[in-house]
């Protein structure tokens, strides 16, 4: 699954650590989501949407499969 987390985070001038703190997850988890190595659970996806004030479908795009 593709996502726009990194772009949105950088637009706001946040570090991965800042975003991790807002989401109450580790920095490694933010990095794994941004690089597409890990797809977050639905509750975490909703927290991301809330933090960025964007709908979930704007944050994530379905991949080829």
């Amino acid at each position: 699954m593709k996502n726009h987390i990194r772009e949105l985070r950088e637009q706001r001038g946040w570090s991965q650590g800042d975003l991790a703190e807002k989401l109450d997850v580790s920095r490694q988890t933010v990095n794994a989501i941004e690089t597409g190595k890990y797809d977050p659970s639905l509750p975490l996806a909703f927290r991301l949407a809330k933090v960025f004030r964007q709908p979930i479908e704007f944050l994530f795009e379905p991949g080829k499969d």
Partner: protein
Amino acid sequence: MIRLSPQAHQRRVMIAMAVYVAVLLWVWPLARAAEAALPKTAYALTPVPPLLYVIWLMARRVLAGDELEQRTHLIGLGVAAAAVSIYGIVGGFLAAAHVLTPEASAAALVWIFPLLVVVYAAARAHAARRYGGACADADASAALRFLYLAAIFAAIAAWVHLRHGDAGDAGLAAGMAVVMLGCAAFLALRQRLRRRARDE
């Protein structure tokens, strides 16, 4: 639950394991010499509290982790459970067929928990790397910590050998020193290879 930093967690585990080894070398042997059942049992179970503390630290770390961390813990614990099961089945059949002596079987039982911890740590680190975690700097500090532990175990082995010449205890400490040295060498090599790959 308050999340401990990886360094704080490792420091606590290493202190607990140092206490465990010290108890195993200096307190537990008294169980063999004691004759009454109560002190014999008490001495025999002295290594258990530091291990319970380590198990509590592991449980705390899993509970305080986020969803990705819990997933990597689960992978680590799954692989460790498989390794311990294989170890138990092989050891059990060998003991039942009297290939292993009762003393060797008891010694094999003592190694179940260390095996579980080592396999869990390795499998979890591997899983975390697949998700982009565990950077080279973490390897460097971990290698240094293993090197310190190797030096401590080597000093204990030398001290035990010179003090009362118990070959079993000195051998155990020397074996632990070699294992720690191997871990330090592995992590240092991995860090070097990763740095090289990153520079290219």
